[in-house]
């Protein structure tokens, strides 16, 4: 780095601000975040879903990014515990893997369907924007 930074005495600045707050008698009492309950708001949010293209795009992206499911999660432990887990894994894989594969196929299908829907919504948005523009132009012409 060729240039050097200007020294800023942050503590001094903060002391000055503290003094100013005290002098002006500003009150720092306020509702604590801990005392807030967001449950009602969360319920309301879940009830009043409004369409938002950005949100839709984001969630379709998330569906894609999370569409692949692994058939087991590695859990670390002691040697004996690991051996035990390995044996259980080997014994159950014939049962679990087909289910997980089926789920992954289902996830991919859902992802494809959502992508199609998203593409359709975007196309329709463009069509509507064009029609609105045309309508406004025609309105201007008739005036």
């Amino acid at each position, binding site marked *: 780095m060729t240039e050097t930074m*200007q020294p800023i005495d942050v503590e001094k*600045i903060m002391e000055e601000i503290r003094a100013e707050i005290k002098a002006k008698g500003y009150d720092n009492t306020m509702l604590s975040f801990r005392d807030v309950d967001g449950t009602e708001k969360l319920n309301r949010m*879940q009830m009043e879903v409004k369409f938002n293209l*950005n949100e839709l795009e*984001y969630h379709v992206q998330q569906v894609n*990014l999370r569409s692949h499911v692994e058939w087991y*999660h590695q859990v*670390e432990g002691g040697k004996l515990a690991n051996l035990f887990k390995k044996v259980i894994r080997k014994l159950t894989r014939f049962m679990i893997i087909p289910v997980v594969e089926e789920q992954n196929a289902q996830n991919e299908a859902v992802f494809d369907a959502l992508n199609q829907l998203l593409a359709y919504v975007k196309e329709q948005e463009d069509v509507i924007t064009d029609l609105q523009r045309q309508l406004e132009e025609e309105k201007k012409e008739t005036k």
Partner: protein
Amino acid sequence: MKIIQILTTISFGDAVSNDTIALRDALLQMGYETAIYAENIDPRLPKGTAKKVKYMPPLGKDDVILYHLSTGTELNYKVAKYQTKKILVYHSVTPPEFFLPYSQAAAQLCQYGLDGAKYLADKMDYCLADSEFNKNDLLEMGYQCPVDVLPILIAFEDYKKAPSRKVLRKYRTEGTNILFTGRIAPNKRQEDVIAAFYHYKKYYDPKARLFLVGSYAGMESYYAKLWSYVEELGVQDVYFTGHIKFDEILAYYHLADVFLCTSEHEGFCVPLVEAMYFQVPVIAYDCAAIGGTLGGSGLLVSDKDPLLLAGAVNRLRTDDELRNAILENQKIRLQSFEQSRVKAQFVDYLTGFLKGK
């Protein structure tokens, strides 16, 4: 010799993915055969950016894997099995405690990530951490191999794109614009920004606005609590943008008068660098990697008292000399994150590692 990069998810525009792509470009410039492999690939990325991990070619003992770790995934365990040289690029994992009150799933994912990072402690040959903070994290987890610090590579050229005119038009009016960008997440402590804003609006600028830019997907209950907090405080002009387009994010940086960060866990914190780029003075709480990323620039505070933070915002708005000094310092600090500089550092580190092996 092939040098390949592996990560669980490569998506469009996020910091780790941008870093991976920039490192790939650096490897190509160095003349290496290289590719990116991921389990999940964002379809919006240009075709061929990455391939699925299952299509990874066989690797020899001289080949090198650069493994990006930032979350809980089975890959954290699988990567240890490759008989190659292995470099961990550590982007940090948020401590699960932050998420426990809001999302069990998110907390479990973080715990799984931390377990994976610990599991790899004796299985890596070399590590690159985004920050000193992340380096210390690795050392505490018991990593014995050499660990160097390499800042995340940021695609500054993207910031030159045009900002959303709609957003600029809407908010380019009187009043201070306070900004924080980053997903709505409890480790980022957006409630502290809201509390500071409450005092700022009450005592200093009634026309001020607060923009909390970032997606709340997966964190709905925390987001609902933040909204309830805003409503119960009765504070106006707090805007949660949710997930927005890139040109809109740019517009908020263009509008911002102050960037206020009260986050309590960041492995690097790209938005700080973004604020430096857009010449927005930063006020940030000294925690995790924040101080390291600011590197002496910005206004790094050790007290989170919201009234004091409001006073600090006011000081930056009224004290031109201080504001200019902070902006000058941020401009100097920004140079440390220039792509050419970070890429050169990466080349040095990689060459050193390969020569040492």
